[in-house]
């Protein structure tokens, strides 16, 4: 095997990798948001059995390495269920589940951040539990959750790098390939690191902007 220098095409390769990372990041975040919020609603309604199951699964996902979860889905599920799981599918399933677990925790504390007195007041007015959730809790809880959620997203963006281990062509995997080909590890990993860094900063910035806008909406504007 011949080791080669960098070519202009490597930039395209890096950007492609970044695209894959971002696509998986965005899609698993959205899926995680839906599932995690649904879990929190289950808890809000105190659905028996289901509520305990959700808490248990979330704890398990939060307290085990994502790499092991990834291996369980990618290597374990096909062997156990005799099905075919591609690296991308495994990545989607694992990262969505993992994000869901953390979003669940944030959603629960966001719901709990809304004062009991408000909920009781709403109940006195004859609102149903669902109406209370939609009209009273959801708007306030969202504002509360943005901060922790931004922190989580920066973290989950970094977690996507693990899918390179099962062969998904994400930014880190592209880094691996370039590293082996050029044997210039400092340069390659600095470039890869920088791309991750900039993306993380972008997520942080977007979160701060969104929070500001949300707060501007809920701020008292006078009569």
């Amino acid at each position, binding site marked *: 095997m011949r080791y080669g220098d960098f070519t202009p095409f490597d930039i395209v390769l890096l950007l492609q990798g970044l695209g894959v990372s971002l696509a998986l990041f965005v899609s698993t975040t959205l899926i995680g948001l839906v599932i995690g919020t649904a879990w929190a609603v289950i808890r809000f309604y105190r659905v028996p059995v289901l509520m305990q199951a959700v808490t248990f699964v979330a704890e398990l996902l939060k307290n085990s390495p994502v*790499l092991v979860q990834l291996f369980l889905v990618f290597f374990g599920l096909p062997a156990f269920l005799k099905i075919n799981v591609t690296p991308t599918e495994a990545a989607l399933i694992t990262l969505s589940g993992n994000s869901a677990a953390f979003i669940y925790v944030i959603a629960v504390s966001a719901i709990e951040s809304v004062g009991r007195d408000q909920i009781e007041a709403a109940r006195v007015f004859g609102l149903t539990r669902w109406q209370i959730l939609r009209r009273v809790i959801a708007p306030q809880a969202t504002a509360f959750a943005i901060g922790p959620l931004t922190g989580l997203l920066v973290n989950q963006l970094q977690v996507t790098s693990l899918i390179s281990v099962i062969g998904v062509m994400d930014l880190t995997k592209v880094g691996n390939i370039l590293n082996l080909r050029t044997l210039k590890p*400092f340069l390659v990993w600095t470039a890869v690191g920088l791309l991750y*860094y900039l993306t993380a900063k972008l997520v942080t910035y977007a979160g701060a902007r969104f929070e500001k806008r949300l707060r501007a909406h809920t701020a008292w504007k006078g009569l």
Partner: protein
Amino acid sequence: MKFDLSILAKHIPFLLEGAWLTLQACALAVIGSLVLGLVVGAMRTSASPLLNRLAAIYIDIFRNIPFIVQLFFFYYGLPEIGIYIDAFTTGVVALSIAGGAFTSDVIRSGILAIDPGVIEAAQVSGLRKITIFRKIILPIALRASVRPLGSVFINLILTSSILSTITLNELTGSAKIVASNTFRPFEVYFVLLVAYAALTYSVSILIGMLHRYLNRHQEEGAV
């Protein structure tokens, strides 16, 4: 396929060896990140703008780049500049540096939370800066930081699974070997996931006990 854990029985000694390596790496990395975190946390709260800035840059970089990228940077990069250290040492160093970034943030908030009057009392009694830091600031900040430091260290345990990607046969690395030897990846990774969850759960209980022990005289809160 039947879910059968009995096949794993004869591989338990091998897995325990891996677990032992994980514990060693984590213990060393906890010490490493604590030392680094204390130094950087002190810099981050120092009056010197230069030290403050340097500390902020370090924290920013290592919190916003995926650990696996940092790990590859060191693992492939260090030999290039003539530093030959084994995978275990590289892993501990990388974990310490990444953990140090999170630890210093915790230490910093612990320091900033100290009642300034207490530090003033120490200043006027003529204590030297270094003595004030060692005898007053550090003990108070550390007591207040036990729980957040605990979550940093639990994260360190979970992150240590990534060391398996640089040929280190710690717990996850050995499990990979057992999975491919037994053709039972589902059982292996399922047990592994539960094992990590149990490990981090027991660590979190220990941390809760440590917090209560160290803060046993502070329950009423200072006036």
